[in-house]
């Protein structure tokens, strides 16, 4: 009990509690803080460097509008799944089932439209509904049974994938059949040329999806609650936020986005294959992590994921154009993830 310093305490009255004078800090610390405050700065820098690097070794062919728009097309699926993954990772979770949800939903769309012969609009709705149900199952297991997201979604990944093989009977639905019976399912593959570049409705939808999620995360109460839940769930609860409801909504929205990506996947490859999109899980996590979203939750920006997906796309495309073996593409992507995670750790110590 500091009874003796009472006078001293009283004498030092005044002065502001929160005066925010800048302190003397080293360049390293300042960089740390800058990255802390602007989480997309690092991935943007990496993207610029990557573009400059591949321009230097490949030349004009790389910066050709057609090639750049190809990069965009190549990252459409990763980008969409990345939006879902960002949302989950912001809550300090992870969703390993995103790829399986996407394939399962594409099979639901294809089978109900072609095999059952339902109207394409209805098939599309059923696919989106399947995504919501898958997400709700994840969310239920994580919030109600309090299972860790990593293990939960590892389990549901396996389950959803098995359901996908069962419902598809391991058969591919041919592109011609879809084009003939349910062209709506290939809507996302419609392409058009613009200023020498080639765009698809899928690419435009990707941009719309990012814009929508950016709005939801930054300009609605729900978005603020997602950040707060990932940041410090107990503090969020004491502030009156129902964190279980927020988590449940996040997994459901992620499931619906995966279903949307399923529609886009059908547009991109034309057919419905139970084996498509296998790499989506890891690629989406790569995009999110390179994009500067912290695996520890509460920190990151959706724009970073778009940049992260583009970094992955630029690396793959540039290395391919440079004639480098695919194994070195994998090698460099792996290296990128590790560097990105290391930077995340370092920033967190700010």
């Amino acid at each position, binding site marked *: 009990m500091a009874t003796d310093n009472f006078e001293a305490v009283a004498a030092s009255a005044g002065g502001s509690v*929160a005066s925010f004078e800048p302190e003397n800090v080293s360049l390293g610390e300042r960089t740390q803080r800058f990255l802390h405050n602007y989480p997309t700065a690092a991935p943007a820098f990496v993207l610029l460097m990557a573009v400059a690097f591949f321009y230097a070794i490949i030349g004009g062919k790389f910066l050709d509008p057609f090639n750049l728009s190809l990069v965009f097309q190549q990252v459409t699926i990763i980008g969409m799944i990345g939006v879902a993954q960002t949302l989950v990772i912001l809550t300090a979770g992870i969703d390993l089932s995103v790829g399986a949800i996407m394939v399962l939903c594409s099979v639901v769309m294809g089978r109900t439209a072609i095999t059952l012969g339902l109207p394409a609009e209805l098939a599309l709705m059923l696919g989106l509904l399947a995504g919501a149900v898958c997400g709700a199952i994840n969310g239920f297991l994580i919030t109600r049974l309090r299972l860790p997201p990593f293990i939960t979604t590892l389990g549901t990944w396996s389950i959803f994938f098995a359901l996908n093989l069962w419902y598809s009977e391991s058969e591919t639905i041919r592109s011609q059949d879809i084009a003939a019976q349910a062209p709506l399912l290939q809507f996302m593959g419609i392409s058009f040329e613009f200023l020498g570049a080639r765009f698809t409705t899928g690419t435009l939808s990707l941009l719309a999806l990012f814009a929508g999620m950016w709005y939801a995360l930054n300009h609605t*109460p729900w978005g603020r609650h997602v950040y707060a839940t990932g940041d410090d769930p107990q503090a969020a609860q004491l502030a009156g936020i129902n964190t279980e409801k927020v988590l449940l909504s996040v997994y459901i929205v992620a499931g619906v986005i995966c279903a949307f990506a399923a529609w886009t996947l059908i547009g991109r490859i034309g057919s419905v294959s139970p084996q498509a999109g296998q790499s989506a899980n890891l690629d989406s996590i790569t995009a999110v992590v390179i994009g500067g979203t912290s695996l520890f939750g509460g920190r990151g920006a959706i724009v970073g994921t778009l940049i992260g997906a583009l970094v992955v796309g630029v690396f793959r495309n540039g290395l391919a154009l440079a004639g480098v073996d695919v194994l070195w593409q994998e090698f460099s992507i792996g290296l990128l993830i590790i560097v990105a995670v290391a930077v995340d750790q370092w920033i967190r110590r700010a």
Partner: protein
Amino acid sequence: MNAVTKLEPILKGRNMVKRYGRVTALDHSDFDLYPGEVLAVIGDNGAGKSSLIKALTGAAPPDIGDVYLAGALVNFKNPMEGRLAGIETVYQNLAVSPSLNIADNLFLGRELLKPGFLGKWLRMLDHQKMEQIARDKLSELGLLTIQSINQAVETLSGGQRQAVAVARAAAFGSKVVIMDEPTAALGVKESRRVLDLIKDVRNRGMPVVLISHNMPHVWEVADRIHVHRLGKRHAVIKPSTHTMSEGVAIMTGAMDPNDHPAGAYALPAGAM
């Protein structure tokens, strides 16, 4: 003043019990906070002070026992209910969301939406208005002289974070403000600001509950002092009748509160 009026506590707890496994954090405890007063709560570590306020606010409802606000039975089941009823709390150690900025933290869970279509249908936040109000509230409380209400709270020092939490409670509390060791992490100057703030809040007519280990602070601002011991209200004393060392002696069990001439239960001024 009229004839002596029977003063009703604004916040009242009766017979509250809270067990965590084999630990009894609250053991049939009572609590009374009267309008307009600063009630300090003192007690050893583990005496159950934080459990007491969590029981009152709904953050950790008691297993049995009742909570009354202005005479009405409320028994809040979650912190949101307490908050909606006008009780603002600075919880020990769990003040804020670090990666959100100051304005977002102040309005967390009670965000303002843009008027009209944007707010109603697009749920669009009114960032400008919230920042404006945050700036006004903080400077009104003398807590903020800064440019950057958009600064992430984690970039602030521990004391500054605490100040944000204190400001949030002081700014939004409409019936009761509760602070659980708000100055524990603060330096001398910062603690002084918080104490002045508590007096400000009281002077505006708002009752305050202050949990603190700092006896000089308690004796300076409190009207009455609830002494918590072994999960119970052990005594209620007054700075005007008890010295700090008597208070500490009662708190640690070295003195029986009934042995003091002023007795073991002090009523607020104006109550009978």
